[in-house]
């Protein structure tokens, strides 16, 4: 717990020292979330290159692990030693914005710079019409199928939910095999339902801001999962299977189809190199959709080096740097030029996940989101267990969510 103090002292000493040496120099403190061991060195390289071009600006990189990032920033803000810019989880942005910690960046954002971003990724950073942050990292979800099981069952990889259902019937007939891996426990149980909700044409919130769980599309999406459970097309008792449990079944070659994220690919390559898999878009009902997840680059409202910070931001978003970052960390590109590179369009694994980006959906940036997600998780578990009918469960969930939203 001495860290914030030590750091701020160090920064103070540093900036005083700098001020003494070269009074024109501006220091930009940049807190970086540690995605992997490559993150720190990468941003230091960007900073060095920037400083070579702009000797009057000093970029001060500080790498903080994800686990402690929110707590660290909170302490820094409370102690008045917040950095100038920081990478944050987009789900925190609303809290930062509503407390006046985040600086709206519309004034800095030139139309030209704004045009380099893929529009869908800008959307989560917009709060009440103001852009509060830039997308810095992105990933999307997709369907993954076990090709060996599909071949053995004489099924073709599905494009629609009907095809998935028919193929699953064939695969479930194989011995010791489950057709569809359905997550029903702990983190992101709700996301597994949103995949179905979105592709059936529904949404988490309706246009008027009320819960979308009481719509016919939401019911159809839940009914489908319930039908697959009842007919033995999923693994038994989904409520005992976390995301990792479902992925493990897939790695063992016991499941035909799962919904997953890009980070699973290196795991499969390391743990089950013989597994023949394919990445495909989510099955379609009435709509195409995928779940997009982003992290945000935020400017702090009480920063006294906003101009210099913004200069650095524009520099760091140049294509060469973004390409290096996205490839190094295994993320999907947030800028149009990088997304058009051959690596992101031709590598079947990456392209499979990247293909969904134009129509990606995001968790809404609303207050009490975690609580709303928890209501959805609980309702799905009740439906999967047969404690409520999908119709009653979803209706109750919608009214509870509306109550949390104050609508």
């Amino acid at each position, binding site marked *: 717990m001495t860290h914030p103090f030590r750091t701020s002292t160090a920064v103070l000493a540093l900036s005083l020292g700098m001020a003494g040496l070269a009074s024109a120099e501006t220091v930009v403190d940049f807190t970086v979330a540690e995605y992997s061991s490559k993150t720190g060195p990468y941003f230091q390289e960007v900073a060095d290159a920037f400083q070579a071009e702009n000797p009057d600006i000093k970029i001060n990189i500080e790498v903080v692990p994800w686990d402690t990032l929110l707590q660290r920033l*909170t302490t820094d*803000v*409370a102690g008045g030693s917040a950095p100038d810019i920081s990478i944050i989880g987009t789900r925190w942005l609303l*809290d930062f914005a509503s*407390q006046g910690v985040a600086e709206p960046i519309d004034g800095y954002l030139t139309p030209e710079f704004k045009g380099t971003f893929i529009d869908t990724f800008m959307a989560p950073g917009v709060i009440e019409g103001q852009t509060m942050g830039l997308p810095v990292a992105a990933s999307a979800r997709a369907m993954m199928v076990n090709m060996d099981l599909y071949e053995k069952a004489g099924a073709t990889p599905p494009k629609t939910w009907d095809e998935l259902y028919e193929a699953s019937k064939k695969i479930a007939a194989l011995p010791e095999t489950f057709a569809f891996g359905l997550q*029903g*426990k*702990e983190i992101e149980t709700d996301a597994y339902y949103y995949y179905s909700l979105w592709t059936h044409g529904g949404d988490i919130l309706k246009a008027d801001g009320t819960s979308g769980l009481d719509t016919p599309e939401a019911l159809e999406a839940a009914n489908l999962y319930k039908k697959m459970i009842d007919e033995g097309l999923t*693994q*038994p*008792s*989904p*409520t*005992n299977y976390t995301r990792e*449990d479902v992925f*493990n*079944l897939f790695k063992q070659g016991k499941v035909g189809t799962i919904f997953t994220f890009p980070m699973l690919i290196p795991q499969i390559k390391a743990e089950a190199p013989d597994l023949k898999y394919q990445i495909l878009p989510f099955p379609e009902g009435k709509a195409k959709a995928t779940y997009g997840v982003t992290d945000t680059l935020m400017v702090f409202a009480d920063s006294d080096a906003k101009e210099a910070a913004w200069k650095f931001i524009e520099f760091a978003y140049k294509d060469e740097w973004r390409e290096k970052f996205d490839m190094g960390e295994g993320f999907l590109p947030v800028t149009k030029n990088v997304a058009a590179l051959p690596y992101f369009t031709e590598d079947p694994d990456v392209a499979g996940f990247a293909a969904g980006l134009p129509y990606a959906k995001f968790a809404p940036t609303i207050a*009490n989101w*975690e*609580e709303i997600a*928890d209501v959805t*998780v*609980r*309702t799905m*578990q*009740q439906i*999967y*267990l047969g*404690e409520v009918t999908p119709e009653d469960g979803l209706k109750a969930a919608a009214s509870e969510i509306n109550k949390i939203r104050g609508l």
Partner: protein
Amino acid sequence: MANRFQKSVPLMMILPGLALALAIIGYPIFDLAWTSMQDVSRFGKLTGFNGGENYHEVFADPLFWESLWRTGIWTFAVVGGTLAISMPVAMILNDDFHGRGLARVIIMLPWAISLTMTAVVWRWALNGRAGLLNATLMNAGIIDQPVEWLATASTAFVVEILVGILVSIPFTTTILLGGLSSMPQDAYEAAVVDGASGWDQFRHITLPLMKPFINIAIVLNVIYVFNSLPIIWVMTEGGPANGTDILVTYLYKLAFRFGQLGKAAAISLVMFFVLLAFTMLYVALVSRNDRDDAAPEEEIKA
């Protein structure tokens, strides 16, 4: 004057200690009570007094009442089960037999492992497909289909109670063993001469003499178990569908997942008063019983 001064000397001597204890124990409770009456931001900043709003919300929440009820079952079942098993275990370990030292070590060993680790191990062991428990039961021919123990709230809660009992046994056995080894042997010898059976000895000698030790085991275990987060949190996070939530897991979710620190503070305070009420009630009951037991002797003396 001198007499009054002399009387107050002991009080004054414990005053610094008392003040320190009050500051250390009292201040957090005061702070908690203060927080529970405020609107609190996600970052822990108090943003305004709201009176009983947090309490009102908590008491209007059906999940709170379900969790409270389940906390009662959880505490009663774990403490009751622990005592029912620890008593005979302690009596066996108190008898002199070959390898007693080793047996004592084995009983105490689980104590050395953190609760969280034990819960993680059980979570793996209870896994439906890959778990050790199902594999063992299937090999032994007891079940022919794997059972998903943690998939439904009813089986998950029973399993969690059993694990709770398992981890509480070492501590309880230690207390009871301490009591048993301090017991006078001549009472038993006299009873044997009078022709008392093993059950009679247990009923009329062991139990009454063990009362203070059993009481302390009950009070301490109730406090620990009532507040115990790791087992349920690691195994099910209070799920599925909040079916295994007890107050402390519900509180944890409110505070650290939903960022509702005000409501969480209100529940903490409610939990504190429930425990306080239990302890006071229990101590009152015990001391009244002791007085009733002691009464005949005084009559004889008189």
